């Protein structure tokens, strides 16, 4: 890949001047965002530098244990994000437990599926494939699952009377919650559908452009991107179904009652 241009630290330092200009603008116009701006830029730099080190280590050892631990860490950060986005959380262990469960299902099924069928690296757990794959898909699954859970809890609260009306007439908890379940699943999947429609026209995905910058031919990079989009779609659907059905299960009980007392309202952070 002769066309690949390496960046020096001086290049980065030069580019960081742009951020300093942002900060200067903030001071000139009294926007009062220069502190958070600089903090965010520093944090991003440190986080990415650490990730670079971690990836270098992972690629050097190629161990299933370390790859698995890194994947687990990424999943747990995603779960934290899902839970903190909810205005109404499931009470007790369920709030984090359900998110972890769904993300695990999506990650394990979809990533392993991709590694064993489409990519087939040797060994199959090679972190050079497994970790970037997870990194590109996880964030999208997270958005879908968070949206699905948010819609579920919000709709169950606002449409309590209509759900209970069906229960009163002898519907099971799954039948009574079906309209809300459908709504939650739809809202979980909409962002994926929208991003698939817009990809290529409105935005060039970072992963594909990254490969092109790295010297891969555009047609090859496009193939990878299509694979990743399918993995995102598959994982979102899987994770959202698990999250929403798990949520319905938790917010109803064996006597087919609606149990909104198992929701704790929190102020969004």
């Amino acid at each position, binding site marked *: 890949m002769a066309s690949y241009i390496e960046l020096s630290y001086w290049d980065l330092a030069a580019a960081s001047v742009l951020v300093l200009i942002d900060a200067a603008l903030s001071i000139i116009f009294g926007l009062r965002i220069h502190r958070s701006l600089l903090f965010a830029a520093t944090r991003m730099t440190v986080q990415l530098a650490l990730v670079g080190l971690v990836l270098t280590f992972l690629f050097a050892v190629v161990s299933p244990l370390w790859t698995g631990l890194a994947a687990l860490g990424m999943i747990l950060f995603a779960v934290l994000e899902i839970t903190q986005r909810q205005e109404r959380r499931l009470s007790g262990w369920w709030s984090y437990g359900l998110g972890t469960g769904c993300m695990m299902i999506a990650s394990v099924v979809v990533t392993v599926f991709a590694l064993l069928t489409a990519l087939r690296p040797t060994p199959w757990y090679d972190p050079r494939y497994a970790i970037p794959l997870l990194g590109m898909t996880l964030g999208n699954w997270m958005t879908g699952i968070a949206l699905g859970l948010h819609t579920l809890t919000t709709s169950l609260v606002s449409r309590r*009377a209509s759900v209970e009306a069906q*229960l009163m*007439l002898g519907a099971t908890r799954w039948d009574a919650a079906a309209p809300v379940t459908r709504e939650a699943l739809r809202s979980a999947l909409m962002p994926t559908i929208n991003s698939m429609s817009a990809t290529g026209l409105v935005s060039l995905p970072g992963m594909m452009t990254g490969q092109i910058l790295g010297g891969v031919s555009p047609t090859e990079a496009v193939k990878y991107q299509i694979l990743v989009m399918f993995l995102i779609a598959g994982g979102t659907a899987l994770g959202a179904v698990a999250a929403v059905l798990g949520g319905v299960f938790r917010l109803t*009980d064996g006597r087919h009652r609606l149990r909104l007392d198992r929701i704790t309202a929190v102020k969004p952070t």
Partner: protein
Amino acid sequence: MPAVLQVRDLRTSILKRVSFTLSAAECIAVKGPSGAGKTLLLRAIADLDPNQGVVTLDGRDRSTIAAPEWRRLVGYVPAEPGWWAETVGEHFREWQAASACLRKLGFSEETRTWPITRMSTGERLRLALVRALMVRPKVLLLDEPTAALDAASEAAVESLISSRIQAGVAVLWVTHDEAQAKRIARRRLVVEAGRVCQETDQWPAT
């Protein structure tokens, strides 16, 4: 008359222990100030909120009956019924079977396609009543079924329920109206601050 519904030591986090029996073809009026727990009592019997105690129907323990089945046997009509579809007709499994009942309460055939949002509070109450009757419950739990109705509609609802009582249905009827309580029931439960007491009228029900 044999007891249809037996309630023993029924209680929730708010409702204090309550025991009573309801016979076939009997109606008990439930009275008490707003917020005293009348709705909670009906919800607990319908098993819509977590509760403890023993409730039996024709001698069968509620815990041995699946909850959906129980709620088809013990029908509850809340004061503010819910709607899950857009038109009136979609809330009835068999519109034809319901239409005789609906006509008695002043609804015509074309009501079927009307949107729920167009119905008044009183109309919704009556629709919900018919919807619950269509399931053919043995016990009816009614939460102020005539609260938002004019005199004519109130009379129509009372006569419809009376006909069901004569056919053997047992009814627990929440009402604020003293005259109505006397018309419909001989016995009454008085709910106050989560406590339930029984009273019997001296005069016979008409």
